[in-house]
């Protein structure tokens, strides 16, 4: 019973932590596409800024992944 709850908690940790950064990354990528289409000569700079901001957003999901790993370690 407890193990099942731990497994559920680990799954939920990753699943819920994915929602926000997923929306945010989609938004950022979409805006970057728009701005590249509007000004193709700035594509290089936009791409660097996009990758950096995606990395910061992705960190949030990875905290969820860390919690999931820590929970799985409790078995």
């Amino acid at each position: 019973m407890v193990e099942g709850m731990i497994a559920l908690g680990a799954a939920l940790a990753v699943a819920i932590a994915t929602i926000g950064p997923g929306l945010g990354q989609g938004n950022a990528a979409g805006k970057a596409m728009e701005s590249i289409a509007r000004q193709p000569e700035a594509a290089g700079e936009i791409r660097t800024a996009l990758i950096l901001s995606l990395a910061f957003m992705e960190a949030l999901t990875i905290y969820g992944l860390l919690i999931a790993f820590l929970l799985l370690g409790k078995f």
Partner: protein
Amino acid sequence: MFFATPVFAAEAAAEHGAEHGGGALFSIFGLEVSSVVTTMWGLMIVLFLLSYFATRKIEKIPESRLQNAMEFVLEALLSQLSGIMGGEKMAKKYFPLLGSFFILILASNYSGLLPGAGHLPGLQPPTSTLSVTAGFAIIVFLCTHYFGIKKKGIGYFKHFVQPLPFLLPLNIIEEFVRPLSLSLRLYGNIFGEEMVVASLFALIPLFLPLPMMLLGILFGLIQAFVFTMLAALYIGTAAAEHHH
């Protein structure tokens, strides 16, 4: 807590039928040598030989393909770093550290694509364990503060109370979250990709892991790039000239 992850790797690898996840192969003077360490040695030898042969007879107008290829990679990286750190002078100053990070992490990520990686003893991508990535991140953490103090002296610590003094605890937490997220991002991506490939391999060994491995080529490059860019950003802001 964080250094207990080889246990996860070993457990997960045992589930997927791979015997050598994080266990020790042999030990030298009481230090356990795992597959990750031997792979790192192999990468070091390969990178050393590559750099040696590329720079053995260096030419102003390169005729050899190896020197051309190396110059192409380094110049592309240098121009990217110049954009982040503000000026090529700044980027060139810290390029030996950041460039080494990029090349070593890239080679380490791609070593997971070698045949038998994760299954054969002595071959496992080093960046798929948290100990290695945490080591990288701690080097970045120490270098950031070292370069900052070297550049600005005691005035470096002013930025901890910079916008408003009561933000001091938040600023300190931020400093310590940086290496945490830096190491976890790299580890999570590479380890996760290895695990997905391993489970696909366990389902159908033929052709099924191929799309994921193709994605792994992309992810390996992006993660090496992101690590280098973030390290450049941290070091660049710590050692930036005063503008105000």
